[in-house]
């Protein structure tokens, strides 16, 4: 790995200036490296962080990558990593115009990393250097504890998708002592409902009384209302005071924190070093959580800007056609499949257009007539501001859930594609399953990354129970054994896992239902309890 040439660096500094002019905000410094294919193969199992700790599975991955590389020359790599300064990677034989295009894309990512609130917990330190110190620590531990370090890494990694990412994020937006309720909020949210237990009718009446006071006395309506409350319930103030002093409930712990705090095994004198390793795996995983949760947004944002900025750049005139070819590959909607670059970019462009026309407003939402809707345009030109706020505040799930509507689906002729077996011709048929925005949205949401959620409790002496929250999906059965094996080791006792699985249908029944109605076979769920004890897994169907 070597730094990019001074010539290319100068070009990139020019890109930064142009990006700043249109409103992107990012740290001044950035590092650009030339990487060879060989570097890439070694970097990709380390999630492109050169300083990430060593672990043997990465070597197997490397070997596997090598094999796969011979077969499929394209591999999952990212070009830019969220470090301080941000590091990005380039092929050594790229022409200047392509480097400019890629660099604009990279700037889009860097801007996203450093402004999107879902990355809030990564803003205050440099991950590359922290990873380096972790790597040294692991190497030192390995020289003392040998292969057991690798077992702890392995078992920690087997649960590293279950880290409490949102709890971690919440630290940044929550005030230290929890949210302070105003008198008014306390009255409506807690006092009336929990203390006085008033009926819904009374509650609404009270709400209406408040609204009327505000209407008639815009200046001091709230004060008047609270005075009237005090005169009605003399005990109100003392209740409010008591509530303020009440301690906030203990925070929810993720499985790492739970094990580290409650496992007798881990807290033994001779096993204390394992806690260090676990914390390291946990924080590494937390660091990467936002990346996978903002794929559509992040790629969409970067694609939007590389197109916008490249075409404005006067230094590369004459390469528009070259650009168009690469850009089309990146940002075209496939006939079947979901390209996050294309979807995200279109959604940003759509939102910008909507906001420019003032359509993100109550007035527009209330319109029912299609022709009027189509002509609605207030010319307020607030599009840029609006998409900047979206890039700051959204994750993929919110982005998709909030903004995909029928107009968008129609505009880009999107549909949900289905796949079915044509028994006569022995082919898979792809067909247009639905063009409704509701279905499309559901399909995208369904394909988003979503780890299972576990409730953790100790049910008896040294026995851990994990309750998998049912969200309409089973767990991957083959992996349960490996994962529970790791948890048992870290916990130091037997572990139960409660989950739900689909009741299998006998083969004979399937053959009978081969007719047309095969599209929607009935799915019945059953509760299953797995038990891992002494490294042996057993499975039991729970009857309620």
């Amino acid at each position, binding site marked *: 790995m070597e730094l990019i040439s001074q010539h290319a660096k100068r070009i990139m500094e020019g890109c930064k200036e142009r990006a700043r002019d249109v409103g992107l905000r990012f740290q001044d410094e950035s590092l650009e490296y030339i990487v060879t*294919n060989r570097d890439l193969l070694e970097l990709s199992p380390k999630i492109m962080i050169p300083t990430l700790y060593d672990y043997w599975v990465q070597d197997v991955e490397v*070997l596997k990558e090598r094999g796969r590389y011979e077969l499929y020359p394209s591999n999952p790599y990212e070009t830019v990593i969220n470090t301080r300064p941000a590091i990005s990677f380039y092929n050594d034989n790229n022409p200047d115009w392509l480097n400019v295009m890629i660099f604009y894309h990279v700037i889009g990512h860097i801007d996203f990393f450093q402004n999107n609130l879902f990355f809030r917990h990564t803003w205050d330190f440099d991950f590359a250097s922290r990873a380096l110190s972790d790597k040294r620590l692991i190497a030192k531990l390995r020289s003392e504890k040998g292969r057991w370090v690798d077992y702890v890494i392995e078992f920690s990694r087997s649960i590293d998708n279950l880290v409490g990412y949102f709890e971690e994020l919440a630290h940044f937006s929550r005030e230290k002592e929890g949210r302070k309720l105003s008198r008014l909020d306390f009255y409506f949210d807690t006092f009336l409902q929990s203390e006085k237990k008033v009926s819904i009718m009374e509650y609404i009446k009270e709400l209406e009384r408040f609204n009327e006071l505000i209407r008639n006395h815009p200046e001091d309506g709230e004060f008047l209302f609270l005075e009237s409350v005090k005169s009605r319930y003399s005990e109100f103030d003392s209740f409010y005071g008591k509530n303020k002093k009440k301690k906030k409930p203990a925070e929810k712990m993720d499985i790492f924190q739970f094990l580290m705090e409650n496992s007798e095994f881990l807290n033994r004198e001779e096993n204390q070093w394992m806690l260090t390793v676990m914390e390291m795996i946990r924080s590494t995983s937390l660091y990467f959580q936002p990346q996978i949760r903002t794929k559509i947004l992040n790629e969409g944002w970067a694609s939007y800007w590389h197109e916008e900025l490249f075409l404005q750049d006067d230094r590369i005139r004459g390469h528009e056609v070259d650009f168009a070819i690469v850009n089309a590959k990146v940002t075209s909607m*496939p006939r079947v*499949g979901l390209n996050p670059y294309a979807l995200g970019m279109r959604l940003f462009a759509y939102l910008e257009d909507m906001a420019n026309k003032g359509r993100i407003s109550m007035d527009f939402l209330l319109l029912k007539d299609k022709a009027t809707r189509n002509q609605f345009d207030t010319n307020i030109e607030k599009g840029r501001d609006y998409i900047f706020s979206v890039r700051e505040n959204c994750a993929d799930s919110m982005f998709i859930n909030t903004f995909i509507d029928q107009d968008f689906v129609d505009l880009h002729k999107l549909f*949900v594609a289905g796949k079915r077996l044509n028994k006569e011709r022995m082919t898979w048929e792809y067909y*247009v399953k639905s063009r409704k925005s509701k279905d499309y949205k559901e399909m995208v949401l369904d394909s988003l990354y979503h780890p299972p959620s576990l409730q953790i409790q100790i049910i008896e002496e040294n026995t851990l129970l994990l309750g998998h929250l049912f969200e309409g999906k089973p767990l991957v059965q083959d992996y349960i054994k490996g994962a529970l094996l790791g948890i048992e080791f870290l916990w130091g006792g037997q572990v139960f896992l409660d989950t739900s699985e689909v009741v299998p249908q006998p083969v004979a029944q399937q053959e009978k239902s081969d007719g047309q109605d095969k599209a929607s076979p009935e799915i019945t769920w059953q509760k299953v309890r797995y038990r891992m004890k002494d490294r042996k897994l057993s499975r039991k169907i729970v009857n309620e």
Partner: protein
Amino acid sequence: MMQKLLALYHSLQEKGLTPEQERLIRYELDLAAQQKNTDHSIRIDYFPPQSMYDYNDLAMLDEPLRPAILSLSPTHSIDELLERDRQREEDGFPRKIRVGKMIKPGRNGADKVVVVPTTVEEKLLHDQVRANEEGEGGGGEGEGEGGSGEGEEGEVIGEQPVREEKGGQGGAGQGGGEGHEIESDAYEMGRILTETFQLPNLKDKGKKKSLTKYTYDLTDKNRGFGQVLDKKATIRRILQTNIGLGRVQPGIPVDPHNLLISPDDRVYRILSKEKDFESQAVVFFVRDYSGSMSGKPTELVVAQHVMIYSWLTYQYENQVKSRFILHDTDAKEVEDFHTYYNLRVAGGTQVSSAYKLVNKIVETENLERDYNIYIFHGTDGDDWDTSGKETIPELEKMLTYASRIGITIAENGYGVSGGSEVEKYIKGSGLLESKKNLLRLDVMSKESDEGRLIEGIKKLIS
């Protein structure tokens, strides 16, 4: 073809069939009838990525062409990794490294097999909801994908042959030329299989005569004198000499008349003695490629045959010849592994035809004299010759010369488990007991995984 099958079917019917046998035969006949229609299938020329998370910057933005050859030295060698895996077992944890193989669908059905170690990091992850446990290979029906473009709801926009992911149904003769790419990896894989999975070593390899014979060929080079002048090499030497002497300068045209020739510059080829090894073993891979084999059974059988082939390659240090035989109601020999792997028809099944062909080849080529002969047969257990009347005598004949016959039955799930025709009549014949050292049978269900396959190999060869 159909007429022939139907005629055979009727003659069998006359001899009497149980309803169960009848059902299986009818099923295969149906498949054979459908085969006609599949010729028109339209191929769609894209493979949608598995999920949107497979899209990434470098694949999308950078130049699509990257050099395909790559030498890599990871920090641990494969042997160290396997040693670690052995250590795991001693520490009481299950092994984690699996010897996987990847098959790249190539053009014209010329697939390439690469052997790689793989591992899975097991985590608690959400799975897709499946109504039945089978799942249709890679992506079954069910969850929709994204799409864009024209088309009414319900309209079919493209189709893809069910088995296309396996590299297309190569017709006979396709994929020639690249047939032996697998070989270089096979030895290594055989070694890994033998060491890691403690597959047994052959007890008495080379019981038959092992031959090293010598041939003479003009392959060595000598300067100054010899039999045949190597003109190209000689000119190269002359130029080197003259550059050294300063008689050839860059930028100035070379005049051959002015070149000096030293006697040592003349390069000749001379006769030399070359060792030529003869194969010590010949392996017959026999596979049922009838309609009922499609899907999982074929995959299992072929995967197992790859591993057996690798193991023998290692055992005989590359001195293995392999022959590939496919059969439905007729048997034929195909020339390379790729055709063997890819070919599929939808006819009926007659095991005896394949055994007959093996016997014929052994006899006419007099293989018995020079080779250890191994025969591995993979089938789903269906046989229209339900009693084995024709098969058993052929099998007995094979047993007279073979070092080992291994029969793998990968059940296709249409019939009754544990009750396939082949299994019944082989067990009935008593050969399994009387020729225990020569004949082995392994029956597995169609859900078997790699571990089961290796276990099966142990059963077949130990």
